[in-house]
């Protein structure tokens, strides 16, 4: 069945037209990447990497799925690779931030330290007009997280992955995973509160 596709360089044999990719798909891919990464520069890089990787695999694309689905699948892999790289760098950060987190609670009895105890945000958090503003603040707070934490949090919530799958992908233990989820939320919450004061 591959007979037809042996002439790799001849574009009429291919099921895709790369010259039109940027026009047709770049913005959609970028939006998807941003929603997973919340970082414009990284998102741009990965969109570019996606197109270049797709070019090099062009002869293997058989048109069974749509071009768009095919490109999105490549992008998803690039994002997973990015997370994995972050994770392998990130285990040190867990240890470093140990002290930051202990600060939230009394070492002896686990009570909130007065300075860090959550206070009411003092605004109508269900007001849709505020949601956009809060979302912007949250993005700023997310950028301050260690990359590994962000990766874990994002994989859990954006892609709704099971914790076992995330642990496997990022080579974390189950207890590491929950410690990261907990610390991430403590830090995000404290960060939001600081902005809303």
């Amino acid at each position: 069945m591959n007979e037809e596709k042996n002439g790799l360089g001849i574009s009429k044999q291919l099921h895709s037209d790369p010259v039109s990719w940027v026009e047709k798909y770049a913005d959609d891919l970028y939006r998807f990447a941003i929603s997973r990464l919340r970082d414009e520069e990284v998102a741009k890089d990965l969109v570019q990497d996606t197109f270049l990787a797709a070019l090099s695999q062009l002869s293997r694309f058989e048109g069974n799925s749509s071009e768009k689905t095919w490109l999105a699948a490549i992008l998803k892999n690039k994002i997973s690779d990015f997370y994995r790289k972050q994770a392998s760098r990130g285990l040190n950060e867990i240890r470093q931030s140990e002290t930051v987190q202990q600060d939230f609670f009394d070492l002896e009895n686990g009570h909130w330290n007065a300075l860090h105890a959550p206070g009411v945000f003092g605004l109508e958090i269900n007001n849709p007009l505020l949601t956009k503003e809060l979302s912007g603040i949250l993005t700023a707070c997310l950028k301050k997280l260690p990359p590994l934490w962000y990766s874990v949090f994002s994989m859990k919530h954006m892609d709704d992955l099971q914790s076992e799958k995330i642990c496997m992908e990022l080579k974390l233990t189950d207890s590491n995973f929950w410690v990261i989820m907990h610390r991430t939320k403590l830090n995000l919450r404290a960060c939001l509160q600081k902005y809303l004061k």
Partner: protein
Amino acid sequence: MTSALKKIIYNCKQATFLIEKKNSGKITVAEALQLQIHLAGCAVCRTYQQQSLLINRLFTGFQTKDLKLDEDFKAGLKRRIEKEINKN
């Protein structure tokens, strides 16, 4: 009172940990009970719980529909793709 119970009643660190487990659907029946008892007596952790859920909602509700790549970047990308094709 069992020691596990005593521990959770006064321990906000453990309670907030359990809140995160609960939000992700991984809490055991015993843990859920411990958490419920803690929250009944701890207004600060109840606030935490609300805000924790709010953060999840904000995070998953993030809107990207107005975002676009800038035209310069797209033009550069297009040139790059054309160059790669002509190589072959």
